[in-house]
């Protein structure tokens, strides 16, 4: 009898095992990033921090795998109907945090909100509409054949349409997107993702709890609670990990990589990145920047290799263009052009031998060593008599300033959302146009319609060799024109305690899929 009972219990335990896997999500994970999300509205800002939040609290239709393929999430399967149309089938039985059922109406709501969002509308410009077939089937339609349709679908994180519809108590529209404003959506959130926001104090800490009704019961993730603390100081963040105060940190400053690698209780993961760091020179604020010679002079004065070697400790690739190696637009011929004598010569030719004074702004907790890079650039510009008034700010204050174009030179890092060169140009060098959203992050107000037209042409070109040639020509022309000052492609690094198995959930986009994280 006893034997029988033991066997029975054993078989029950076995049968229950896969369920138990997800039900036992009891581990607590303490995360320290350099900053916390500036808002809870995932359509308010297109930024790395917000996309990381999206992957924690929402789920995309499909998402990137580690080797840059696609994996189904809320969309179970997809098929091409014709050259302009893609049909998606949605997963059934998915619930939002609010308890509402997820259907294709939510996708439609989200799609329309994305088309309204200042930051996202440019990505969704090629799409002409969405057709709802039934509750779990819909079609995305583009106006022309669009090679990056699936890439873009990774940016559709369906929102809870019922939750975000209607009016708040004081009569505001719940679905409104307000940049840097206090909208309903910036403080409340309901998605389908693995975590809900339990408590949030801006700039202090965010607490996430695992969502009981999470649809993905196959996920190996066993983290039940995440406490995200922003720690801006590099040194303090690393110390917090090494002393055991936190379990997972990002980014890891380049000068501490060795220290973490040598620590037997810590786990370091690095990847060579595709995020370009660059300076814009605002032509509307500074008359001299309209002169290509002045812009070229600045391009010649900046020592990209010095910054990459000394400030980034070799943990970055010096850049002379936006497209990293491997992208279609990457132009082999473009090399960093540091030459102070040439820069001084160009300033003289432009009639600015005595230089001028400009303002410069940079975040101090967004990109690796961003404030130190800006300081070094200021010193380099002093060589050609450009005096720089530098201000560095935490990113929560920096982005509003950036949207106001508050300084003459502003630093920004950009990761191509579609993993394609054209995305760089559309956001960073297109003529700014609030209506279509193109040039939304072009703080230089550089405008060359010819180049824009060439990119548009490349976007509908399906012959990949031709497309690559066009995009490379774009890079060449931007380089000749010194439309912006590229610095480097920033490498990526994360570190955790040994028992936190971060490697499988990390990727080159820097969206850790924390829902699938396993803590031993």
């Amino acid at each position, binding site marked *: 009898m006893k034997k029988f009972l033991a066997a029975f219990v054993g078989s029950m335990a076995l049968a229950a095992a896969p369920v138990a896997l997800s039900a036992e999500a009891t581990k607590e994970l303490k995360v320290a990033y350099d900053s916390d999300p500036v808002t809870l509205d995932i359509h308010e800002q297109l930024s790395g921090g917000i996309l990381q939040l999206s992957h924690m609290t929402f789920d995309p239709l499909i998402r990137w795998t580690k080797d840059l393929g696609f994996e189904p999430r809320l969309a179970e399967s997809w098929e091409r109907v014709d050259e302009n149309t893609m049909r998606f089938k949605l997963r059934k039985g998915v619930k939002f945090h609010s308890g509402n059922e997820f259907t294709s109406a939510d996708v439609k709501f989200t799609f329309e909100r994305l088309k309204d969002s200042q930051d996202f509308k440019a990505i969704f410009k090629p799409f002409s509409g969405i057709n709802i077939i039934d509750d779990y089937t819909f079609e995305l339609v583009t106006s022309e054949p669009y090679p990056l349709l699936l890439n873009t679908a990774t940016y559709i994180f369906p929102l809870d349409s019922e939750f975000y519809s209607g009016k708040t108590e004081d009569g505001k529209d719940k679905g409104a997107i307000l940049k840097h404003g206090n909208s309903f959506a910036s403080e409340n959130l309901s998605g389908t993702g693995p975590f809900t926001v339990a408590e949030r104090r801006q700039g202090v800490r965010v607490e996430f709890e695992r969502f009981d009704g999470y649809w993905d019961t196959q996920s190996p993730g066993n983290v039940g609670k995440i406490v995200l603390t922003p720690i801006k*100081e*590099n*040194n303090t963040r*690393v*110390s917090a990990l090494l002393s055991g105060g936190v379990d997972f940190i990002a980014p890891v*400053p380049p*000068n*501490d990589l*060795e*220290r973490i690698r040598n620590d037997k209780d810590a786990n370091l993961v690095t990847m060579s990145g595709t995020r370009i760091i660059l300076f814009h020179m605002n032509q509307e604020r500074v008359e001299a920047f309209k002169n290509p010679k002045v812009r070229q002079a600045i391009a010649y004065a900046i*020592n990209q290799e*010095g*910054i990459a*070697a*000394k*400030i980034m400790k070799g943990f970055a690739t010096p850049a002379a263009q936006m497209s990293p190696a491997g992208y279609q637009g990457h132009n082999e011929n473009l090399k960093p052009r540091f030459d102070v004598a040439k820069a001084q010569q160009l300033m003289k030719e432009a009639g600015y031998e005595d230089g001028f*004074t400009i*303002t410069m702004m940079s975040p101090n907790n967004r990109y690796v060593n961003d404030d*130190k890079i800006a*300081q*070094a650039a*200021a*010193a*380099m*510009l*002093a*060589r050609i008599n450009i005096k*720089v*008034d*530098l*201000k560095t700010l935490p990113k929560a204050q920096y982005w509003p300033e950036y949207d106001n174009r508050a300084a003459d030179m502003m630093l920004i890092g950009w990761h191509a959302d579609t993993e394609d060169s054209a995305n760089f140009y559309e956001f960073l060098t297109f003529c700014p146009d609030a209506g279509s959203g193109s040039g939304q992050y072009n703080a230089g107000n550089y405008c060359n319609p010819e180049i824009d037209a060439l990119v548009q042409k490349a976007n509908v070109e399906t012959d990949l060799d031709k497309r690559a040639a066009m995009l490379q020509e774009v890079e060449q022309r931007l380089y000749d024109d010194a439309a912006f000052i590229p610095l480097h492609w920033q490498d990526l690094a994360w570190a955790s305690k040994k028992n936190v198995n971060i490697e499988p959930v990390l990727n080159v986009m820097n969206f850790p899929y924390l829902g699938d994280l396993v803590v031993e």
Partner: protein
Amino acid sequence: MTTATVSRWDRFRESFFWHSFKRDKVAIVSFAVLLMMVMAAIFAPLLAPADPYDLAQINIMNSELPPVGMSGADPAFPLGTDAQGRDLLSTILYGTRVSLMIGFGAVVLQAFLGILFGLLAGYLGGKVDAILMRIADVQLSFSTLMVAIIVGAVFKASFGNLMFGEIAIYMLIFIIGVAEWPQIARTVRASVLAEKKKEYVDAAKVMGFGTRRIMFRHILPNTLSPIFVIATVQIANAIISEAALSFLGLGMPETQPSLGSLIKSGFDYIQSGSWWITLIPGLVLVVLVLVINLLGDWLRDVMNPRLYKG
């Protein structure tokens, strides 16, 4: 004239002040170190191998070189360089200059305000006393740093960064000076309260001297010794306040480093090999503040006969 100065010098040499200084080794060493640092700071432009405020002289390729004696050092940079490639020796010399200027400047301002308000409150008493001392109480209940941070932030926001960079040193003198005057005012007031009951004050009144003359010519000289002592300590305090503000990023801009901002800029590197960026300016700051405090201590012993150790 010559005889007068000689006799004054003789009088000084025979004084108890000089006598106790000669016998106190700590005071002699402290004074020598302080004198050396002040001289080095005053003549920084002549002594320093490079001008750390001139951004055009900085080369990023020289960043984080260690001090001479370690592998990879460059003899052109005896104490190494910081993360931006500035020569540390030059930066420390200039930084000490900034710190000392702010220390002395802030104390002169404090002493001016403190003596004026302390005298008025102590001698006039009544409503003037009540109002001035309540203001001092209110101000003392805020910590110096907090007042300095608020005032600094307001200035920074209203002047813009470049403008603030140019006037930062005067702003810091003003901020720290204004934040700390109650310390001196209270000391002065206490001494004045004790002095004003003495016979010489009554005598002066009987002779018909005016209030102002009695306050500044008769009472003030008799309250000077505690002021000297407290001023010395306040110099050290002001230097520390400036370093703390700069460390928090609210003091001197990074392009004109003082000791505090230099310590801050090296803080990221202290555990990853480049310890000298923080440690060397840190030691300079500690030594500077220590010798000033030791001198202040000695001065207190000399000027207060009740503590005289014989």
